[in-house]
């Protein structure tokens, strides 16, 4: 579809008052245009500016249902199986199109679910406003794929490790004469235990992150506040009630390094009987290595 045709379609939708906006899937190098043009998924068009290409379409129905299904004044749907189904549909639609594009061009910057603009005319402006950053990010992801790494520590094994920790032992073993002091000592012991658990998670996360960095760029989410909340059972621990999530990260790997990932992770969570386990997923488009676009510019 040409720019002029896109504009006509956008205006027609505006007149109908039903324009859900335009959806942006990914940004690619402008040189990829030739490789892409005959392989574009249905409804997807390319917009070029500043040597960059953006793949856009009208917001697909599957995504529209999950994004603006609740118009103003409409009763918001409850978190339910139906809502989840629309979100799953939207996520899979988004991912399928991004993967289709990545298969055609090799490397791209995938945008997150829900990146939408009012009109195709906004896209060149957004590409121009973000050009420097986008070009640099494309260089970073070029020839690399994203792999997800998630490490969990079995709760009991973690508690056992903390209980044998020197600092915890010294404070926990203090005598506590009298029931009142005994109660306060117990509270103190709980607090000390929590900080020992958090410190062990911190040390292990640092080790794993350093190991991943030896292979490529890394993005990790892990924080003392999160571990403390997980240890106290106040926060979702990434899916397992009997484990604490030590680290959830992504690493950007060149193909020759991909075979090393499992071994590097295994070494970082050693010894095998420490109660740590890891799962690796991928390859993915490099979602975790794309900065948010400045859309309002």
């Amino acid at each position, binding site marked *: 579809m040409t720019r002029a045709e896109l504009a006509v379609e956008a205006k027609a939708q505006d007149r109908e008052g039903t324009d859900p906006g335009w959806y942006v899937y990914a940004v690619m190098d402008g040189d990829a245009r030739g490789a892409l043009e005959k392989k574009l998924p249905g409804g997807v068009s390319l917009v070029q500016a500043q040597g960059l290409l953006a793949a856009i379409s009208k917001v697909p129905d599957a*995504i529209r249902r999950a994004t603006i299904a609740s118009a103003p004044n409409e009763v*918001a749907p409850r978190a339910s199986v139906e809502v989840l189904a629309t979100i799953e549909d939207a996520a899979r639609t988004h991912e399928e199109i991004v993967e289709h594009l990545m298969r055609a061009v090799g490397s791209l910057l995938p945008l997150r*679910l829900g990146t939408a603009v009012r009109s195709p005319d906004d896209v060149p402006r957004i590409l121009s406003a973000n050009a420097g950053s986008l070009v640099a990010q494309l260089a970073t992801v070029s020839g690399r794929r994203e792999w997800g790494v998630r490490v969990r520590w079995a709760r009991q094994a973690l508690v056992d490790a903390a209980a044998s920790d020197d600092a915890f032992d010294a404070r926990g073993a203090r005598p506590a004469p009298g029931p009142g002091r005994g*109660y306060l000592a117990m509270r103190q012991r709980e607090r000390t235990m929590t900080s020992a658990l958090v410190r062990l998670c911190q040390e292990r996360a640092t080790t794993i992150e350093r190991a991943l960095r030896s292979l490529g760029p890394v993005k990790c989410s892990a924080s003392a506040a999160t571990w403390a909340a997980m240890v106290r059972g106040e926060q979702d621990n990434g899916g397992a009630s009997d484990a604490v999530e030590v680290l959830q990260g992504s690493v950007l790997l060149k193909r020759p390094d*991909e075979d090393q990932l499992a071994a590097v992770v295994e070494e970082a969570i050693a010894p095998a009987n420490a109660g740590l*386990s*890891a799962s690796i997923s991928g390859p993915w488009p490099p979602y975790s290595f794309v900065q948010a676009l400045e859309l309002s510019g």
Partner: protein
Amino acid sequence: MTRDPFEGRAVSGQAPAVSRGDTSNLADILERVLDKGIVVAGDIVVSLVDVELLTIRLRLLIASVDKAREMGLNWWENDPWLSTSREARDEVSPGISDRLERLEATVKHLADSLEYDRAAQ
């Protein structure tokens, strides 16, 4: 010819401590395709094929909270199930906030008494 960027996704044998996840797993897909730009509202428990449970907090998907407001979309702010505001709660169950506060005060009082008694023993 571009090499398939997703080849090698098949599950392969690994050491027991490191397992290989399936990329068709909804939780993994959501983890990647969602980001801070998403309006955060509501908790959804995703039940996965392997019976793993994952809490994902999301509802409305738009470029950013500001963008959504700009487009007149702010329903989540007033949805009593997605909002913690007193007004929103009371809209659904009049007086619920007062009852909640009284209950919280009672529980706190009981907890304080218990702690005091135990410390005094």
